[in-house]
């Protein structure tokens, strides 16, 4: 344990050595929305939502690209995407190669990889159950590791227009 702490201290020191006041990460976010159209042959077509007007039942894929334009790595990067009003999260659609998703039922106050709700059971007693994904209001991605300067990480999730 001591050796690990020492190693970490070395990394921190190494990063701090330049001592430059401007040395910091600068993460920018790029959000795109695309209507997902699945043809009968299984092929999927993505159309920017700015060019279409979705209707009930349509699925929209949101893609977040986080790019570190800074000079130092960005750590503990947590992008957050909304489940817009009038839509519902498509269960299992949140994905990223470097992050795991978490969800909020209360607008970002609390998060969980598998949110639960407490309901009244048949016997009238409270029962904790997995929340329906349509109740999700936000999704976030907890990125593992650091994002090096000039590096990018992609995140994606889908919603369905109600």
């Amino acid at each position, binding site marked *: 344990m001591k050796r690990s702490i020492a190693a970490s201290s070395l990394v*921190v020191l190494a*990063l*701090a050595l330049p001592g430059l006041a401007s040395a*910091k*990460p600068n*993460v*920018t*976010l*790029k*959000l795109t*929305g695309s209507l997902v159209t699945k043809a009968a042959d299984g092929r999927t077509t993505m159309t920017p*939502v*700015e060019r279409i*007007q*979705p*209707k*009930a*039942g349509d699925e*929209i894929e*949101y893609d*977040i690209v*986080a790019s570190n334009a*800074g000079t*130092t*790595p*960005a*750590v*503990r*990067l*947590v*992008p*957050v995407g*909304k489940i*817009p*009003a*009038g*839509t*519902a999260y498509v269960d299992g659609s949140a994905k990223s190669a470097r992050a795991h998703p978490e969800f*909020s*039922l*209360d607008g970002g*106050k*609390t*998060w969980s990889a598998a*949110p*639960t*709700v*407490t*309901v*009244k059971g048949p016997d009238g007693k*409270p029962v*904790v*159950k997995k*929340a*329906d994904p*349509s*109740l999700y209001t936000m999704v976030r991605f907890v990125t593992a590791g*650091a994002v090096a300067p000039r590096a990018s990480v992609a995140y994606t999730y889908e919603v369905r*227009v*109600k």
Partner: protein
Amino acid sequence: MMRAFSFTSLLRTCLAVAAPVVVGFGLASTAPASAAATPAGTTISNTATATYQDPGGTTYNSQSNTVQTTVQNAPSMTISPTSGAPGSNTVSPGGSITDTYTLTNTSNSAGYFQLTGVQGTDDGVTAGLGTFTTYVVNAGAGNQSFATIAAVNNYLTTGNAGGAFMTAVNGTITIGVTFQANVGSSGTITTKLTPTVTLPGAPTGPAGTVTATSASVVGQYNDTVTVDARVDVQKTAVVGGSVAVPTVSYTVRFANGGARNLAPVFKNALPGGNAAAYSGCTNSTACGVAFTDKLPSYNATQLTLTAAVPTISGATGTIIYSTDGTTWTTTQAGAVYIGVFLPATSITGAGLTTFQPNNNATSQNTVSAGNASLTLSFVMNGSTATGAANTNAITNVANSTYGDQSGFIEGPGIGVQTVTNNAAATTAQTAPIIANTNGALAGAGSVTSAASPLNTVLFNGPNGFPQAVGPTNTNDDYTAVSYTNGGASVSAVTGNTVTVAAGAAATTITNSLQNTGNKDDTYNLTAATAGGLSALPAGWTVTFESTGQAASGSCGAVVVNTVITSVCVPSGATQTYKTIYTPPAGATVFNAYTGYGDAITATSVNDNTKNNVTIDEIVVGGFVKLTKTWSVALLQPCATATVFTASSASVNPGDCVQYTITYQNVMPSGGTNDITVNASSFVITEDGAAAGGAQVAYTNTWAANSNGLFAAPVDSNGGTLAGYNPGPGAAGSSRFTDTVGALAAGASGNCTFKVQVK
């Protein structure tokens, strides 16, 4: 900007991630109860954010661009019932019904509905057992009926103050398909509806949207055709009592010959009832079925119930009465209507066997006593008026008021329970009780009958005087004629006989028949030589001809001069007929001053024991008979002669001879209103020097062999004596005339004059 690493903040973050999430307590499910569609025009906006730290633990935030789009119209709808789970109604053959569909807008925006497809296959009645009537649309402005799809669609798009009837999300309208089941149809009748919903785009619809129409949905009903409740009725009438006090006894039997239960409907205006309508009432005394019957009238005179109390049997109910058909009581006095109210408990109550469907296989026109569920019996006073015994004198129709299972209230005059009927009934008034054809007025439930027992009285008499009395009674009344050959007089030849020449004309006598009985009657006519008259010479024939007759009562029209053997005379009417006496082709000889002819007998068909006779008497060759006799006062001059002796073999010079001319009208006389022949302008001419004679050759010589008229002749009837040549008492007075003038049938007289033999 660099922030010191904060263990507290890291711990806070960890706690936030690990904390259990409680979104509610009391939800029945982890999923939303229903997911309302996002309204069209809704802007979906999304902006991503992020937090991160530098290696020093300083936290930074970042925000993405905003992605925005607008939710489009998403038309969708449902219909109930669907073709996958068709609805079902029950309709009676000939009955009408509406299959009502509910159309729900399940889109994400307000829209208007339209019908698609072909009327009769996609929309409307699709089977051949029913006939489409109308679409009944209720889009929020009450029911509106339309005959075509185009009219429906036009209404839905322009009928709302010039615009469309917009139905909100999850809002509904109804469209009914009304049809009439064909008479005699059975099985299943299918209706369909294939509507769509259209969501208008901007600017009428939500901003940023375009017009969109849903795919059509298919609704369907499979309606079962089942014969409904049907009240069968049989009514009988028995005429009784006497001619003076006639009665008519009615028995009315009711049963349910339909395939479904009667539906009690209401008790309005009935004893114990009130203004409320009772629908769906079962097993209650507050509603029921009324069977009613207007008491018949005859000749505009309302017939009345006798003192006998009407009765019902077979079911438990109340006999009701009304004077106007509207207000009903249990008081019989003055009743014009009679009826029975059966409460629902007597019709549909548990365990009842009365009025059950298919009740003992009755028919609309036949309900036997053993199959009746209800029998009403009552006795009425008949009528003593003319024609009251005619079989169609009065018509009595029973009616009912009840509901069938199709929701139709049956029977005419529903509002006041009953209907009218009388001898002069119109079509509506004679409506029978059967009602399952939705008011079609056909069938039975009525009976016509006489209003009195038969009373046959007839008279056969001279023209215009059917009740003429002959010398003794109405069977020897007579019509006498003097035969002329087409207007030419026929004279005696020998003084005793007279010949009707070959080819002579027939003679016609018109007589009258009168029916004073109480039923139209037909009288058979026969002719036979009357007692006291001579038979017509061989070859003469007797036939009857009509004088022409218009249809009246049960008697048909007859064209004038039609050869007949009988005459139909309505009750209370008089009808003439002609008896034609036709000579044979050859000449025939009659005795002069002798009555020939026939007794014409009219015999009733209604009662062949009843007949009446009139006599036709024909005299040929003149009807005033002159007979001349003489007597003599032997050895007495006329101035003193007092005793005259008839049949003297000879006279002496100076004797006074007295001639007597007896004249007699041989036509029959006596009685009242008989028709005979009276002589008029009767003048006797006496010429003592004349010779000649059309019938008998003669030569008068008293002028030459006497001193002429001794004095003025004397006529027993006061005839006017004149025409002397010269005057009486004068030498050679040989001529005079005796103007008797009128000489009635049967009357006679004489004229006497004297001459003194030279």
